[in-house]
């Protein structure tokens, strides 16, 4: 079923790209539209992944697949959404500095909890036992199907973000991000808006986290560090913070470049892959963030073209 040229590395690389695109799209709604600098993306994603993993492995479910997956994934989404509600409430009336502390603190707290509650989560050792909710043949076939399913979810997120731009809700988000006091003077409840934005986007991040857990088959606290937030952020910033497609373009050029092109196709000595490349990847991402924001802050795709958009939707 799976085309033979798709090696396991490639599937894994594509999966990373798809996953980070999903996170970057959600970050676009928070950072690009509402101008909330969420440095804790990995917190919601990791919370979803661990909630899913712990429930999946530790609970003795009376029913089998796919219900076990669906129930655990739903729980993961709900828990992440509630966390989003809480964090949204905490940071909703704070300035950028407070948002940094709140979101970074949250992500750190999630990592701490995952490490210390090791009887539940396996802690620093990690925990296996997560699996696909189906079995259609070879490992590669299962992985490919999961890649396709996750891609479908991310396409749905992309569609949502695309529609948000064309809806009164998106307009409100842009207004809140652009001039919050002015939006309030128009009677808009901006605090509540930011609160529910966070709840919804965090829930989606949690779902993606659960789906990542399935692919990884393993929970590892090392995977829920700041590198995930970095990948989403650099992809979004490079592509264009203000554009829906910015997340897609930017992530392909960063995560795609490293996790697919360099990992799979560049003929480098083997030790490089395990040691040097991952470190260079992060260093490169950091450098890209600096360079883009210094020289082309709106990224490759530039600014929103709302004049064109309004012309298209409403005519003259």
């Amino acid at each position, binding site marked *: 079923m799976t085309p033979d040229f798709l090696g396991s590395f490639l599937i894994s690389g594509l999966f990373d790209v798809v996953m980070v695109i999903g996170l970057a799209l959600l970050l676009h709604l928070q950072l690009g539209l509402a101008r909330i600098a969420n440095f804790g993306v990995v917190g919601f994603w990791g919370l979803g992944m661990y909630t899913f993993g712990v429930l999946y492995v530790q609970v003795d479910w009376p029913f089998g697949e796919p219900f076990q997956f669906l129930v655990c994934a739903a729980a993961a989404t709900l828990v992440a959404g509630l966390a989003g509600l809480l964090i949204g409430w905490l940071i909703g009336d704070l300035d950028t500095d407070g948002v940094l502390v709140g979101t970074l603190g949250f992500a750190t707290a999630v990592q701490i909890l995952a490490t210390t509650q090791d009887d539940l989560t396996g802690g620093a050792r990690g925990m296996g036992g997560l699996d696909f909710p189906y079995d259609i043949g070879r490992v590669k076939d299962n992985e490919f199907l999961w890649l396709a399913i996750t891609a479908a979810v991310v396409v749905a997120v992309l569609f949502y973000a695309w529609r948000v731009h064309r809806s009164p809700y998106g307009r409100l988000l842009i207004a809140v991000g652009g001039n919050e006091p002015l939006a309030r*003077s128009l009677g808009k409840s901006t605090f509540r808006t930011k609160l529910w934005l966070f709840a919804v986007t965090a829930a989606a991040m949690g779902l993606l986290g659960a789906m990542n857990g399935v692919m990884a088959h393993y929970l590892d606290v090392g995977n829920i560090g700041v590198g995930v937030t970095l990948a989403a952020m650099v992809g979004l910033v490079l592509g264009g913070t203000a554009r829906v497609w910015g997340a897609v373009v930017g992530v392909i050029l960063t995560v795609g470049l490293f996790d697919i092109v360099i990992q799979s196709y560049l003929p480098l000595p083997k030790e490089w892959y395990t040691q040097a490349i991952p470190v260079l990847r992060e260093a490169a991402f950091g450098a890209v963030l600096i360079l883009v924001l210094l020289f082309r802050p709106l990224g490759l795709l530039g600014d929103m073209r709302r004049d064109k958009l309004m012309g298209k939707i409403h005519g003259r």
Partner: protein
Amino acid sequence: MVADVVDAVALTRPRIRVQGAVKSFSGRVVVDVDDLVLGDRPIEGLIGPNGAGKTTLMRMIMHSTPLDRGRISLLPAGGGDVVLSSLPAHGMARRGVVKSNQVIMDFDKLTIWDSLLLAVAEARYEQPHRIFGERTLFARHADEIRHYLDYFGFADPTAFAMSAGEKKLLDIVRCLLLRPTFLLLDEPTAGLPDELTEKVMRVVRDLAASGTSVVIVEHDLNVIWNLCDEVLFMAEGKVILRGDPPSIRANGTVVEKYLGEGHV
């Protein structure tokens, strides 16, 4: 009989009551208003020299500037008493109290259409799940918005407001679209060409005639004399004169002393 009707109309105007309101900046008293009721007459004008405290008083009413002392409340047309400082920031517009901005305030990323659709959108359309709500919203409000766009001559509403005058005008139209019951205008015609000033005045007159109370701060005295039913003269933080335009104009010496000869 007519007097009864006039009284009845007066009773159904929303009013704002300022009691013992004081505000100081760096030790200097900028506003000190003992007992003031605004809104009894349809359009009231607030004039005075620079630094008289007019804009600060407006901002105190809107609670953008907190009061050091005192109480400002809204007395809605239907009765009741709402302390304005107790309302959250977005509560003002919900209660129908709207102020235009003296300083240019705009959404840089939003076009003119966006800005006006934003002002007019009801909360139920602005929910995370309403991603297909634009068409319905537009259908409900397009005519109302187009009326203002055509009236004020916005050439291309799919574009962004560029000049200061355009942004000022946009701000005023946003205020109008909010269907205010009490409208505060802070130097609305500053920077506008004469025909647009005329149009703004006409719209304000119509609004006031339909029951909205309007208070307008202005330096352009022609607007004040032509538009206002009553004029308040502020100096050094206090309202020292109040009356209809002819009587204020007649008090020439005071006005002259503060505003210079050419205006009377």
